[in-house]
Structures are given as structure tokens and as C-alpha cells.
């Protein structure tokens, strides 16, 4: 049996119409299922368009205040203390001015600022290079609130993200971290395993419960956290009232962590 050109076009056209309408019906059904699925976000949780943090160095009165934030973070997230700078795991740590803000260091900057312990962490960039390079999408930016997340189940430990991160915010587990956790384990949070990369997560597990990140809670107001999109949020109030800088803004990653350098309050 042969068909002529006219018949072929008729059949092809009819088929295309049927195919398209089928696809829209399928999409509608899928949407329906998604809307009525058994999963929902906890209404108690905090929500934002994009989370951001400000670090006011003038409000840290001593090194102990800074250490308190680090300890709070590392305690609840079961962060190991490897004791070896080549293999250390860092979520929240301190850097000197010239390391935190390279390119801004001046020869005659007041020595006081050179030696401030700048609290640094993952910047939860709006344009995160780590997410771009991840081959498994183990690290990704949450659409809902802009947090740059890690999915440890997917991480294959290739460390591309560590090479990509311009802030050194990512650490690799060269060995099983559990023996190196000297503190009492937090039973509500997992540890990590050998061969995955980890970093600060803006305490997504606490935000889901409706509480602010652990470091913010113990910082006595030195750290402010909130929705950068909301003009009344804590972080926006700090940004409105102070001159702030960000780490390496020139490379276009749009970090979400802002620094108030402040006066000479810190000794």
C-alpha cells in the first residue's frame, strides 16, 4: 500500500495535534498530583525570598564572643576538629582582613583592622560558582530562599566545588570525621562521611523549625539575619544604618553576607 503526499501530510498533521493535546493533558494531571501530594512545608518554619546575614565587627567585644558563635555552629552540626589545617573542616571560622577582603588591603590601614578576627562562612551567593561546576547537582541553590545547599547523598567527592568557591568555604572529608568529633554528638543532626564536601548551610534545619541560625542566636546582636528582600528585616535595618562591604564583590557572585567594619570597639 502506498500513500501519496497529501494523505501523508493529513495523517502527520492529525498526529501532531493529538500529540500536543495529549502532552497538555499529561502536564495538567502531573500538576494536579503535585498539588495534592502528601508532602508539605512546615508552616512553623521561617520563609524568605533570599536569606542574608550581616556581621557587625564592632559588636564583637572580644575573641571569646567570636569563638562562641563558632562553637555554637560546630556543636549543633557535629563538625569535627581534625587539628590539621590541611584536612580541617570549616563551617564558620575567622580570617584576617587581608585574607577576607583581598584587593582591599592598603599598606597604611590601621593595624587594629588588620588583626580583627573577621567571621567568615559560606556566602550563599546569588550566583554560586560551586553550583555551576557540581557534576551531580549535589550542591544546589534552593529556589525558595536562595540557600546554597549540600545534598550529601549525591556528593561524589570530586571537589570541583572547592576549586570553584572563591571564599574557601568548602571542606572535604579526607577521612571518617566521627572519631574527630570531640564534643558530645548532637543526636538530631547527622555527621558526614568520608569523601563528601561540607559547608555552612545557613542552618536550614533550624529555619524549618522557625528559629534563626545558631551563630546568630548566640552573637548578642553582632550577627543579623533576615530576608534581604524584606525592607523591615533585621539584616536590612543593619544595611540601612551602616556602610557595609562584601567579600570579593568584583567577581560577580553576589554574596549574601555583609560586613560592618565599625570603630575600635573590639580590643
Amino acid at each position, binding site marked *: 500500500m502506498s500513500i501519496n503526499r497529501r494523505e501523508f501530510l493529513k495523517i502527520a498533521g492529525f498526529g501532531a495535534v493529538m500529540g500536543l493535546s495529549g502532552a497538555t493533558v499529561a502536564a495538567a494531571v502531573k500538576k494536579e498530583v503535585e498539588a495534592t501530594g502528601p508532602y508539605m*512545608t*512546615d508552616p512553623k518554619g521561617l520563609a524568605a525570598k533570599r536569606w542574608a546575614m550581616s556581621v557587625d565587627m564592632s559588636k564583637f567585644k572580644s575573641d571569646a564572643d567570636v569563638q562562641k558563635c563558632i562553637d555554637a555552629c560546630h556543636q549543633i552540626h557535629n563538625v569535627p576538629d581534625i587539628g590539621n589545617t590541611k584536612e580541617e573542616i570549616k563551617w564558620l571560622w575567622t580570617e584576617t582582613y587581608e585574607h577576607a577582603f583581598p584587593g582591599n588591603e592598603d599598606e597604611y590601614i590601621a593595624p587594629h583592622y588588620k588583626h580583627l578576627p573577621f567571621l567568615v562562612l559560606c556566602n550563599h551567593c546569588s550566583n554560586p560558582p560551586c553550583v555551576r561546576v557540581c557534576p551531580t547537582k549535589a550542591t544546589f541553590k534552593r529556589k*525558595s530562599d536562595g540557600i546554597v*545547599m549540600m545534598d550529601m547523598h549525591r556528593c561524589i567527592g570530586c571537589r570541583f566545588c572547592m576549586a570553584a568557591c572563591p571564599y574557601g568555604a568548602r571542606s572535604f572529608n579526607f577521612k571518617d570525621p566521627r572519631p574527630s568529633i570531640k564534643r558530645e554528638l548532637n543526636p*538530631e543532626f547527622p*555527621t*558526614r*562521611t568520608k569523601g563528601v564536601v561540607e559547608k555552612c548551610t545557613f542552618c536550614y534545619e533550624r529555619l*524549618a523549625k522557625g528559629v534563626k541560625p545558631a551563630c546568630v542566636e548566640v552573637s548578642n546582636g553582632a550577627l543579623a539575619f533576615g530576608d534581604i528582600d524584606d525592607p523591615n528585616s533585621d539584616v536590612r535595618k543593619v544595611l540601612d544604618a551602616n556602610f557595609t562591604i562584601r567579600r570579593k564583590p568584583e567577581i560577580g557572585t553576589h554574596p549574601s553576607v555583609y560586613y560592618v567594619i565599625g570603630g575600635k570597639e573590639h580590643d
Partner: protein
Amino acid sequence: MYDSGKIIVGLVIFIVIATLPFTLNLGKAVAKPSPSIDTPVINQMAKKQCVESKDDMKTAHMQMLNNWRDEVVREGSRLYTAKDGKSYNMSLQNTCMNCHSNKKKFCDECHNYVAVKPYCWDCHLVPKEGA
């Protein structure tokens, strides 16, 4: 056939070795796994009911855990509404293991029997047993 003697002897030796796991265990029954739900939290429950029915949990807990993982980590959803309308916090470490605090007698019992080694516990903490 050249060297038939050597070949046949070789074949016999191969078959004996290849079937050794079966012949060695012939007639021996391995004890059936009997996961225990004897934990303080479960014992206090009036109606011993998991998130879904026992049969569903038995056959599909792995799919459920996979879905929970993806929902929590990637979508940020934390609550699961079961078929009976009850709502649960989707968490292996905080929800599942809160009731099933006996990993050795519950999880491992069947996992060892069927020789599967889920890597949950590389990261997730096991509740302290006997506490």
C-alpha cells in the same frame, strides 16, 4: 579429544568449587529474620501503628525513605501526611529512629539476612541502645 583426562578432572574440580556455597549449606536452614519492635516508645503506644500500614512499610520503606530524603533536602518540605491523615516530620534520625531505637534488632535483622548494606549510618546517627 586430546588431554581428555585432564580436562574432565579440571571440569569436575571447577563444578565442585562453583557449587560449594550450595552444597555446604545443603539442608541447613538459616534462621528467619524476626525484627523486633520491642522499644520503650513503641511499647507505650496504644495502637502500634507506623507511618503507613505494616505491609506498606515492609515492602516500600526504602522508596518512602528515598522520597522523604528528596523532599526534605531538595524541596525543603518537612511534613508528610500519611494515608490515615496523621502528619509526620520526615526524618530518619528524628522520626523513624525515635520509635525504632533498636537498630540492631530492627534494621539490621532483615538487612543482614538479605545481605543489603544501606549506607544510611555512615552519616545518620544511630540511637544509643540499651539506654
